[in-house]
């Protein structure tokens, strides 16, 4: 058995611990370092949050799947370099870099199912166009937020728990809460300055 990080785990001859689904992040990392097969538990815990983060950043299922695959392959390869701290923060950093790389690549890949979702195709072309513009306005306003405020909102939208967001940002949960609330106030101000009204943003939901 190849031991990736001998100093961080049990003596080499001991079998690696098998963390249960409720194990904390540190135990997951330690177990995966001792036995890469245990990486599966870490993957199961974070595949949803990482995918949703990538989806919000990239806006398409295909692109989010590509990025998520890349994030976990990179994480597996670099697990021995993980030096403790926040596991969600480490994964978020990898995901951010991966998303940036994807944006730099030549053209976004959108799946036909993303665009032609039959179940969701309930709009006329003009309403679909205005909804798309309203969503883009929100995306742009979100992108213009200060880094921590933006991350707090994006991770919330991506369904990360309060604890995971706090860990990823290295802040208390109260501080994250305040970041989010300030972000919302700032978004409202930006959108109002651009002439958007409440009904437009309701359109964006459709």
């Amino acid at each position, binding site marked *: 058995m190849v031991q990736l990080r001998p100093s961080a785990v049990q003596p080499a001859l001991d079998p690696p611990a098998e963390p249960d689904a409720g194990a904390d992040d540190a135990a997951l990392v330690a177990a995966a370092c001792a036995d890469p097969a245990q990486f599966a538990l870490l993957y199961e815990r974070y595949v949803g949050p990482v*995918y949703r983060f990538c989806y*919000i950043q990239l806006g398409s299922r295909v692109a989010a799947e590509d990025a998520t695959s890349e994030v976990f*392959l990179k994480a*597996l390869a670099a697990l021995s370099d993980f030096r403790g701290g926040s596991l969600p923060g480490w994964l978020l950093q990898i995901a951010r870099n991966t998303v940036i790389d994807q944006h730099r690549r030549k053209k976004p890949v959108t799946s036909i199912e993303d665009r032609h979702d*039959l179940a969701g195709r309930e709009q006329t072309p*003009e309403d679909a166009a205005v909804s798309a513009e309203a969503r883009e*306005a*929100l995306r742009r306003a979100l992108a213009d937020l200060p880094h921590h405020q933006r991350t707090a909102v994006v991770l919330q*939208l991506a369904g990360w728990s309060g604890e995971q967001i706090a860990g990823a940002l290295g802040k208390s949960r109260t501080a994250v809460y305040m970041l989010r609330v300030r972000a919302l106030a700032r978004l409202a101000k930006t959108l109002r300055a651009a002439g958007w009204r*409440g009904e437009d943003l309701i359109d964006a939901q459709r």
Partner: protein
Amino acid sequence: MPSDERGHEDLLRRYWQAVAEDADAAPPEGLDPLAAEMVRGLRSLRAPEPDPAFVARLGERLKEETAHRTAPPTIAPSATAPSVRSAPRPLPIAARRRPVLAGLATAAAVVLAVIAFQVWTSGTRPVSATAILQRAEATASGPARFRSFVITEVSEQYPAALAGSEDLVRSEITRWYEAPGRWRREVTSTVLAPDGEVKSRGGLVSVSDGSTVWIHRLRDNTVIVRPLGSGGTDELGPFPEVTGGLSGLLSQAGVCYTPRVVGGETIAGRSTHVIALGRSRCAPGAEAGAGTELVEWTVWVDKETFLILKSVQEVDGAVVATTTVTSVQYDAPPEASRFEFTPPPGAKVRDQRQ
């Protein structure tokens, strides 16, 4: 922080929580209406759950990677015993020439193969559905081969075909384009009940003058103004919906479909290949039963320009959506006024250019 601002932040916080639990939650009294609607609008950016099939595939791939990592390292013989072979002697000159000649022959063969491929792909009669779709994808990815065009298309969709609705949305879309970034798109649409009664009508005009985009929804006289290339409906580029909207389909054609040429037909006076793609093997609902895996696609590709001029989607033999180009003129420069736009009096303008 002023106390009124602190109070407003508290209202925002409460409403964020309420909307997370109930999308239709009423905003608390005193909350700025725009802020309240923004909280609800942000819900549109929420991400869906990953497709279980994708999660399983990636899980398997990671498992393979980890198996590779846990496999006992292979020990090379040279690491355990000194080599008993003597150092290689220099080859005779003739022997040294052989690889050089072989290399030249290989290079020549590669060059010939490349030339043959280019001749094949530049011809007007590609030999396979995949080759046709590859050229269609190249066309849909960039308008470089066109200086201008005017295209009109008609689209008919049953918006919730899989959910039982029988309303039909019929749209007519005309697009004027002139390289490199000027276009105008005019849409009129009608929602029809199964008995033919008109339930609603709408219209949209979007114009790009090469640097700014205007989008005008006629129903409520809303005009959105923003720089060109900043997202939104630019995703289709200058192309008609039937081509730009299918670029994703084309990029996946070889992986997710088994395309085959099923004939030829004239569409809007243009000769086309008819290509049946069948059902997607990659649809997200294939395991989840969302419905998109049921859709069978057929596309009509212009034999000369490789623009898609028609697409039909069917579910169990019933047509759920069609888009057909009804007229097309290539290299027909539109008049300059097509690419100008002034918001009409009383328009509600959302200006994104700051």
